[in-house]
């Protein structure tokens, strides 16, 4: 049975790895619903959070293929029950409407949204939560002239991954990550050789 799975991948910080991981999905024609990558709590270790809708068998095989990549430390997959997750969304709405309509204020309080930019022509609100919560605020704001809307990829914390957190720290203690110089010449065009 297909369902939403969140894949969490701990990796080295390496140029080109995103492509290697993405290829594992694209060559099997599996659509990625959401992808986030960021530094993790351990220095030099990055973390990918990938959401897909697939059967467990497929997800398990995908994780094994991901783990085969040289720069991948570990890949986990979890159902929604096994993780705590959030998405962040921003909503741009006309300021005059917000200023006049009390209803909107109530709506924003209800959804825990807060203003991040207030200009005379528009105001940007942000909120975070599960997809449905973000979607329903968008629907609620639409009648008031929603100008623009954007949603982030999912970020997720595995409820029971303390073990790996410790292992990561252990890795780091034993083998501190090295600073890799990547394409530094791109910024020094005049200083390097010419043909």
């Amino acid at each position, binding site marked *: 049975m297909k369902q939403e799975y969140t894949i969490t991948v701990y990796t080295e910080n390496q140029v080109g790895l995103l492509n290697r991981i993405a290829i594992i999905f694209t060559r099997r024609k599996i659509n990625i619903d959401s992808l986030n990558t960021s530094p993790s709590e351990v220095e030099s270790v990055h973390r990918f959070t990938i959401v897909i809708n697939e059967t467990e068998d497929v997800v398990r*095989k995908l994780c094994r293929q991901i783990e085969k990549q*040289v720069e991948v430390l570990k890949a986990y997959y979890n159902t929604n029950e096994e993780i705590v997750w959030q998405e962040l969304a921003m909503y741009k709405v006309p300021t005059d409407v917000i200023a006049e309509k009390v209803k909107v204020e109530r709506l924003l309080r209800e959804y825990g949204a807060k203003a991040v930019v207030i200009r005379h022509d528009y105001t940007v609100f942000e909120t975070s939560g599960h997809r449905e919560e973000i979607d329903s605020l968008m629907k609620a704001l639409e009648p008031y002239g929603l100008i623009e809307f954007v949603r982030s990829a999912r970020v997720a914390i595995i409820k029971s991954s303390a073990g790996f957190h410790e292992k990561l720290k252990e890795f780091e203690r034993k083998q501190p990550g090295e600073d890799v110089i990547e394409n530094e010449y791109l910024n020094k065009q005049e200083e390097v050789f010419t043909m």
Partner: protein
Amino acid sequence: METLELTKEKITTSTTENISGSEAVLKALIAEGVTTIFGYPGGAIMPIYDALFDYEDKLKHILVRHEQGGIHAAQGYARTSGDVGVVFATSGPGATNLVTGLADAQIDSTPVVCITGQVFAHLLGTDAFQETDVINITTPVTKWNYQVTDATEIPAALAKAFYIARSGRPGPVLIDITKNAQIQKFDYKGYEKCDHIRSYRPAPIIRKEYVEEAAKLINEAAKPFVIFGQGVILGRAEKEFKAFIEKGGLPAAWTILGLSALETDHPLNVGMLGMHGNYGPNVLTNDCDVLIAVGMRFDDRVTGRLDKYAKQAKIIHLDIDPAEIDKNVKTAVPVWGDCKETLPMLTALIEKKSHTQWVQRFNDMMQEEHDLVITQEMHPASDDMSMAEVLDALNELTKGDAVIVTDVGQHQMIACRYAKFVQSKSNVTSGGLGTMGFALPAAIGAKYGAPHRTVVAIIGDGGFQMTLQEMGTIMQFGAAVKILILNNNFLGMVRQWQELFHSRRYSFVDIQSPDFVTIAKGYGIAGRSVNDRANLKTALKEMLDHDGSYLLEVMVGKENNVFPMVPQGCSVAEIRLK
């Protein structure tokens, strides 16, 4: 002045010296034990070639005629030597010409390190002359790749490349080096081999409980059956494997990449698996009660229809790559790890048995196949020579001691079915990718990998025309490769499928060939063509006895088919004998 101290793991230098990135590349290769490089120079790799000029006494460079030939040669070298094959190519078209070989090496787990030149770092991403994004192009077909833009990265990048290519499940690695990094001088502090990467686990931790569980299943089995692949050869576990099957009295069948891991005449060697494999092993796959897969990956050419594959059997899968477990076939017990270590553990726990009646069933079915297929193939009634009789005659002359390199097609299946082997690393073929044009360059590499052995490249008339320019490499460097062309004036395998599955609509398979012997003569390679049975053995002997390379063209039956055959979409038990 540098003094090299060679220890088992590390090479260190006592002093620092100022050298170019190119020199660092060559020092790395020497430190890794490389002696032979296959390659083709060009603008973006010129600094490395310039440095190579001073290293000719330590590094033999074989100038191929096409980069695809270079990487296939490196594959052939790796497969016979058991070490890493090395290729040089320039940027852009030079690098893209490697892609077929990389894909081939990736799917067949062949350790290859490719070093490609790249445009200057400041030109990256500008569509500069001969610039291609080789890292992104090769990502899906490499075990690992990396672009070096600064000379100081070279020693570590190459150490990583060799470690990754040869460790765990081996595979191809590509290092792309910008021209400025090749020219740039830096303070070289010596070369240190890589033996650990934080995020890389070449072999999984062996779980003893799984080994015990597997042994229990084997001990309880009435009809156990072993199927083995190249993992046995890559793990250098031929002895361990033989001890395992001999103690358990276990009949064992091979995939085409596992061929030669166990000598052909071993009493427990029951033949070849798969689409054109032997009758017994295919049919009895669906009859055994425990199926023990060793270092093989359940390729679709081996399994046929998955939903009808060994459903009655409990499957034990020994593999170094955890991603292979349950990938295609659901296992009862996965035995993760290097089979060099897991096989002895398993052997220690299994009971000594013989399974005489069960082994006899394989022998009976082999007899049936002999009566219905093999005898006719080896002794055809018609005047047309069959490919099998050519192989039979070759076996008689080489006594199974030659390295056989095959291309792709009918001749490949016939060679794999009929060639005999007495030692490991003797069969070199393009298994997973099925690359036509593979054999000639791979045979050149195989000869450098096993210089004291006879190397016979068996090639169809179609595949030979894909890379025949590599005869130029033979001409220049004198690799004594015996080229045996089995010419049926057809793209035989496609024609066979068209006959069986496309109502004999022979669409564009009637391929015209040039006079191969005359072409070989143009390259200074002796040769002859035979089209009658009476001259076959003499001609083969002449080829084998000839001092140096030799091309023998054997005209074989135009519409001969390769049987048995598991038609696509059928179960292995539905194998057809005719």
